[in-house]
């Protein structure tokens, strides 16, 4: 119990510092804004066309009938179909989240060297905490910052999207598209934020100054980016290209009523991956297991390093 309180105390202080220092907050916010703007830009350019097309005319109703569709079904198609554009937009915009792998290690690598530069490290080492507690606290504090900012950016994205949709089309994002975006953030975005942060914090253990940690942080970021793209590559490419295994899995399992209607009309859907190789939940679980194992391995190595080098 006491150890947990000590770890949380370190995490809490780190969390406060991250906000005062600003760089972890700024980097995460910028990545969030880039991705959000990227997702929004596609649907917004289609907004006026979509609004005009959604108005029913007798000619349109007659044409729909030739496809065997009713006006009610057509209105569902319009509502969900527009939301599907958000999902399709992620194919390009989601690239931005990869910046987390590149940039977060750079900003997070300053965390531990900062304690050494301030000279607080020696003081902390004379308190009854272990190197494990210290590393865990630092990691949790930085993760809390990054995840909180990520969550705020996600909430901001939904708020802006709903505001724009309701003011222009008088309906919001469909449940299936909303769920897809939330799942994407949790199953793909969150692991990237965790990985980038963890690698950065742990790389910092080996350096005495924040400046010295920048370049290794950049190297770790580059290696993370390349490693992720290679290790977790999707088995097939979609319309614009599918980014990684988790994204592919989500896209492959995405269903909406608009897709069902398009299928009835004989249209080819814009991100139809039905004929591509299938990715199961097991492969996704393996991806997370590999990530957890790698983080645990690096954590254990840095812990041993602290013990050997600093008797901590």
């Amino acid at each position, binding site marked *: 119990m006491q150890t947990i309180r000590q770890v949380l105390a370190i995490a809490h202080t780190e969390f406060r510092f991250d906000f005062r220092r600003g760089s972890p907050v700024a980097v995460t916010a910028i990545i969030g804004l880039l991705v959000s703007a990227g997702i929004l830009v596609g649907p917004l350019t289609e907004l006026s066309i979509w609004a005009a097309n959604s108005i029913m005319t007798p000619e349109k109703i007659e044409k729909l009938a030739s496809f065997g569709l009713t006006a009610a079904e057509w209105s569902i198609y319009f509502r969900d179909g527009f939301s599907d554009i958000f999902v399709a937009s992620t194919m390009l915009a989601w690239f931005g989240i990869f910046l987390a792998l590149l940039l977060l290690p750079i900003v997070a690598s300053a965390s531990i060297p900062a304690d050494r530069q301030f000279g*607080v490290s*020696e003081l902390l080492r004379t308190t009854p905490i272990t190197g494990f507690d210290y590393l865990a606290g630092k990691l949790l504090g930085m993760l809390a910052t990054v995840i909180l900012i990520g969550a705020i950016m996600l909430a901001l994205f939904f708020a802006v999207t709903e505001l724009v949709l309701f003011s222009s089309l008088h309906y919001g994002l469909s449940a299936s598209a909303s769920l897809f975006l939330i799942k994407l953030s949790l199953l793909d975005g969150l692991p990237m934020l965790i990985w980038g942060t963890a690698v950065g914090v742990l790389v910092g253990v080996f350096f005495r100054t924040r400046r010295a940690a920048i370049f290794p942080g950049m190297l770790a970021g580059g290696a993370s980016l390349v490693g992720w793209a290679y290790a977790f590559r999707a088995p097939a490419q979609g319309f614009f290209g599918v980014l990684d295994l988790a994204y592919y899995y989500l896209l492959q399992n995405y269903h909406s009523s608009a897709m069902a209607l398009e299928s009835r009309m004989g249209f080819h859907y814009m991100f139809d991956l039905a004929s591509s190789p299938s990715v199961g939940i097991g492969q996704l679980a393996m991806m997370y297991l590999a990530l957890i194992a790698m983080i645990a391995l690096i954590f254990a190595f840095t812990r041993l390093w602290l013990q050997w080098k600093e008797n901590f």
Partner: protein
Amino acid sequence: MITVSHLTKTYGKKVQALRGVDLEIGAGMFGLVGPNGAGKTTLMRILAGLLRPTSGKVSVLGNDVTTRQGKLAVKSVLGYLPQELGLYPDLTAREFLEYVALLKGMTSRVQRNKQVNETLELVGLAGDARRKMRTFSGGMKRRVGIAQALLGKPQLLIVDEPTSGLDPEERVRLRNLLAELSASCTVILSTHIVEDVSQSCNDLAVINLGQVLFRGGPGALIAQARGCVWTLVTTGERPGAALTVVSTMQIQDGVQYRVIGTPSDASKAVSVEPSLEDGYIWLMQQSRLEQVSGS
């Protein structure tokens, strides 16, 4: 009780910071004196569990600091003020002390707040507790350092060069505070300022080049220099090279020197009662002579 036996510490392969140190330190205030680079900080850091010794045994309050369990046990009763004190500039003194209190295992909020308030009061920082530490003077930062060391009511307080950079008033205040604290815990004061020790310690060791040169009370160190401290007045010429000049003062008849050694013409010199500083300098002089004759 702290017991150090045959303690050595070598940095890399060449720098021998400690060469077979044997020490026993009891309750009260203990002074560790020596010139810069003598090995004091290395010894303090080993006692605090920050450094691993190369060889030898260290027992602090019955715990072996070279083992993981022993180290943690020592740290749970330790207050430590490092030579180069680091503080988070963006935190207030109160925030920093609360943080350290939590790390020291004070999980009860009520108890923590009470102790933080008490220590802030004790070091005279209660009025500045909500100021960010970046705005603090060197003396105030030092007081925050002392305050954090006192949290958790330590049984062992290690203070490494606590008065460096402090003005005379701050130094006296800090010395008195440490002397008061030594009534309830063991205080190890490491310093190269002999005056700090002379004013507050009843037990001391002098260390140089990683070895203990003297161990005993201030009186015993003073006694060693008795008969070797002189004052002599010259018209300007400096005393011979065999004498170590402790102080120089311009007076009406010329220059008055306080020297340690054996003057060539004792009739012109007046033997005086040595101070602790004289005793320390005499010891250092003897140590240097032994080194020269040894090499």
